[in-house]
């Protein structure tokens, strides 16, 4: 997906620095801040709302909020009417 508008909420207080979200993100949205031992949600515009980061987080520190309208199926609906 490209050009999406999904949001990611992160609670650094809950995070224990396990790096699982960083490793699980297969689209490189999440980078790792070694000094702070916390994820950086650096390329949120490339988020595909797969929920992998949420699924691996055992502390419930991440919430992905999809904006489905920003995903386009590119079917020619106007032609189909």
């Amino acid at each position, binding site marked *: *997906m*490209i*050009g999406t508008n999904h949001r990611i909420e992160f609670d650094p207080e809950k995070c224990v620095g396990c790096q699982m979200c960083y*490793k*699980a*993100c*297969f*689209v*490189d949205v999440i*980078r790792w801040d070694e000094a702070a031992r916390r994820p950086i949600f*650096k*390329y949120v515009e*490339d988020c*595909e*709302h*797969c*929920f*992998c980061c*949420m*699924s*691996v987080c055992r502390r*419930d520190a991440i919430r992905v909020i*999809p904006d*489905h309208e920003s*995903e386009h*199926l*590119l*079917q*020619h609906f106007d*032609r*189909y*009417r």
Partner: protein
Amino acid sequence: MEIKKNVLSCDVLIAGGGVGGLTCAIELKEQNPALDVMIIEKQFAGFGGKANKGGGVLQYFQLDKITPLDFLRFHVNEIGCFLGDQNVMLKYVEMNHGMLDKLSSWGVSVPKNPDGSYNVMPTGPFTAMIRVELDITLRMRQRCEKLGVRILDKTALSGFYVKDGRIRGASAYSILDDGNFYTISAKKAVLATGSQNYRFGSMWGSGRGDGIAIAYRAGAEMRNAEFGNFSQLVRYKSHHEVVFGENNMYNAKGEFITKNFTDHRQTDIPSTAIREWYVQMMAGNGPVHLEFGPPPGGAAPEKKDPPDLSKMSYGDKFRTLNWMDSQSVDTDFEVVPSLIGEQSCIRTDGNMRTTVEGLYAIGDCSYCGSGAPGAVPAPPGRNRGSGILNAVFAGIVAADDLAAAEYRDPEPIAETEINESLDYTYAPLFRDEGYDPKEVIRLVQEAMAPSEYSVYMREDRMDEAMKFVDKAAAMVDDLKASDMHGVLSCHEAEYILLSAQMHYFASRMRKESRGWFLREDYPETDNKNWLKWIIVKNVNGQMTAETEDVPIESYPVKLPE
């Protein structure tokens, strides 16, 4: 950012740390612990690929009830439509139980009954499935590490060094902004880089065709490039897939339209369901929706109470979050097709060797190229549960061949060659101005996503689609990035464009309809002229194609009289 040149070497370089690459590495090290095996993975090995994002099922053949030939006959007639390499498919079925045993021995949790037999869910007369935890690839990574496989994460393959048609090594780069550029001298190389999903859908459509494009550039032949146009029904708002939704389709008049394209329950969605959606919409009978109830529609999905996510395994939580997301925005069951793609066209022989000496291709990047599935985009190729197991199969087959191979020191890679590869890799970073790679990707998506362009094809509609492709092609040499994340996007845009070019190049040639491949202007299957594979290759920078007869007379399942 300062670029740091690193020189590495290994016996076998595996690009891709999903289930295929990990299988190959484990099997190789178990057979020959002395081999120096290295995996590079552009994200994280163990989280890469699709095995940890999909349905979490392994195909199972009840070989006490059916023979491998029974399944082959079913597959050739119903799915592959005589275009498959039947020897490869037969070998896959025969290895089924052995593969499950291997996965178990590698630490993967494959559920068993108290008596030690596998816990199997029957899904049809010829097929069954076993659920598998989505941590499958993490377990396999652990096994790799224990066996001494070297793993370079966040490292993307950039190209191969090939001389006289033989592999000598590869170039790769860190996608982090640390400037690491790698020249890896390798005696053999294995591509396990996934299929092409056009960066379009969510979930399991994560392939960007890296290995396909890099193999093509290195001179490897491609086969079945026109079978990379898989499309699935998704819910209108959330875009979540409705697996098996094709059995329950109704138009706005309340007519049951599934009956227009099939009289029996399919193993998975056929392209005729996508065609039916398009035909209904064009006739003004849309939108199309699903209804659940008594047969033929089948039972409605269960209504569930809000689940307690905190107690769930990774896989259950992943699936539940996606289901809850879908339920939160889609209040009805309107469905539309969404492109998934799955081009997997690197040509291999039965041992997963490509046409470049010393280069193998396994798993999703060569599923159709291996010939195994026939006339259907794969994985899983309307053959549920075969995606993960095909990657395991191909990884084992390649490793068996590699374990018995002769290893010679490759010719050294010259500094000029290294610099040439480095210049290509980082070019988008050093360009003063250029296009955003997402502009190119969007143009290709415009060409591939509409169902009437890429699935239900016709010459004039393909011409329309190619206008987008040609526009993208005019931009792709001038892409600009500001960091390494952007550099990766630029290279992915190249790969995505090449896949679309190959799709339409081969699709225009195939003047018939067969299996998944549908043309409105050539609706009939033409066994007389088109029981052939289309082989696409790069000849001096030009895309060329030729055909090759499917040797049907040498296969167990013949054409009907």
